[in-house]
């Protein structure tokens, strides 16, 4: 069962997968708290269109990937400056990119193998060099995210005060999206567009429901992402040619669903420090009324019972 670890392509897949999972979890946390989940779906697909364009021009798909994702990241931050416009901006830019992608593919006469592998990934077919490039890029991205950490978090939750306190909110938003675009471009070649989105959103969305402290949520998201990836690769390697993406996406969904269903058990509880503050006035008025009403109903019920 563990024999598969001897094969170098499995080792490569695990190493590259872990790198991508770590960066994706950190970037994914910020994407969720910034309300940018949709961009996590759009950027890999936009990258696919760029790769198709590059193949048509006869150049390495990587250039197309970078050009399209970074261009889209800048476009999204300019067009979608206001929160309520952002998803619209992402949607408009993604549909344009996908339209172009289909055009490029239809103009290209042959079967663009490289392009399709970007859509679905080829994690078990990557070289040591790929692993090395992925690892270096992941470390650089992580370092940059660490440098931006506090202002990025501050401006994610409270852009107005952050701006008043001197945080370059707009610039930061753009830098962050470009960073995500670079991450996506590098990782998509390894894991594919579908898996990229899974690793960006799944682990962080689950972690946020379990712990509240930002740093802990990020750590947990990393742990989840790495576990899904390793387990997914392991299961796929032991099955007969079932795709890795399927296993990782299913694991991610399964754990999220479980946490989502169970989280009311702990999220509903307020971690108050003393009983003093759990007063009636801490509840919204409607709830108080409901309580009073149900109390009085209970009393009536008891009176009736005793009269029997």
């Amino acid at each position, binding site marked *: 069962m563990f024999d598969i670890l001897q094969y170098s392509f499995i080792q490569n897949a695990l190493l590259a997968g872990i790198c991508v999972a770590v960066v994706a979890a950190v970037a994914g946390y910020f994407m969720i708290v910034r309300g940018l989940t949709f961009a996590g779906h759009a950027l890999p697909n936009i990258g696919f269109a760029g790769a198709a364009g590059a193949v048509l021009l006869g150049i390495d798909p990587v250039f197309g990937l970078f050009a399209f994702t970074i261009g889209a990241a800048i476009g999204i931050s300019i067009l979608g400056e206001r929160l309520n416009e952002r998803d619209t901006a992402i949607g408009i830019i993604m549909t344009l990119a996908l339209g172009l992608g289909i055009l490029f593919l239809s103009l290209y006469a042959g079967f663009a193998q490289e392009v399709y592998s970007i859509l679905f990934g080829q994690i078990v077919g990557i070289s040591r060099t790929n692993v090395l490039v992925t690892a270096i890029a992941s470390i650089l991205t992580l370092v940059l995210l660490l440098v931006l950490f*506090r202002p990025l978090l501050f401006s994610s939750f409270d852009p107005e005060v952050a701006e*008043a306190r001197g945080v370059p909110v707009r610039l930061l938003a753009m830098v962050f999206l470009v960073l995500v675009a670079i991450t996506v471009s590098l990782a998509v070649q390894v894991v594919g567009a579908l898996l990229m989105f899974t690793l960006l959103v799944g682990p962080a969305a689950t972690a946020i429901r379990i712990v*509240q402290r930002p740093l802990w949520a990020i750590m947990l998201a990393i742990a989840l992402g790495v576990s899904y990836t390793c387990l997914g690769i392991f299961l796929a390697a032991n099955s007969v040619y079932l795709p890795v993406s399927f296993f990782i996406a299913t694991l991610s969904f399964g754990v999220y669903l479980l946490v989502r269903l169970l989280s009311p058990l702990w999220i509903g509880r*307020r*971690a108050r420090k003393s009983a003093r503050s759990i007063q009636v006035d801490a509840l919204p008025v409607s709830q108080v009324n409901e309580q009073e009403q149900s109390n009085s109903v209970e009393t009536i019920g008891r009176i009736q019972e005793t009269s029997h």
Partner: protein
Amino acid sequence: MALETRDPVISLEHVRVQFGRRIVLEDISITVGEGEFIVVLGPNGAGKSTLLKLLLGLVKQSKGLVQVLGNSPRRGNNAIGYAPQHRVLEADLALRARDVVGFGLDGNQWGPGLPSRKRNTLIDQALLEVDAWDFADVPVGQLSGGEQQRLLIAQALLTNPRLLLLDEPLANLDISHEQEIVELVAQLCRARHVAVMLVTHDINPLLPVVDRVLYMANGHSTIGAPDEVITSAKLSQLYGSPVEVVQALGRIFVVGAET
């Protein structure tokens, strides 16, 4: 202490602010001293929030002189604490109360920030000062409007400001919580000797604590003690149309103003 040797906290001289062709503030001149409690009143769109943004360096005047503690306004001024008009943080499960307050301390600094005992102590002190320590570790999405408002005030206090700008802190609060926030701000104003500029729609809960009222309408403004400013004559002149100030049930009502 000779007060006249110190710079006023806020000094505006004949200031005009305009966005494109629209003039939001016209010829406004005020001086606010240390520890003064100023309430800013006026109808929607009168430029109340713009005035705060002017002091924060987020918008620039097109005419006149603006000074905050003797300097031109600039972003990132630690001498100003700011709590903007509040939206309810319902969806935000991903932050605890103390994380929100912590932003006020070092949210604008680069790097992930190392955990430190000194940082925790400062945050605890701020939480205690606004009576929010009990729910320090509760996700902000689960706090009531009044509790969230306390956090935003605590956040604004962390740099030891000499000027506190509060935009509509009483919005969406019921009367008892309104009263709590008013008492809290008044107490901070006196204890810390911090000047407060508080934007609101309703002067009544603030009448016992306010020093002066800045009433803004139609791009113009007038400042003074509540009973000087909130009179039928003064407000009719400001609005440019008949306005009646009515006293009833121990409260002041401005009738005919919101058109």
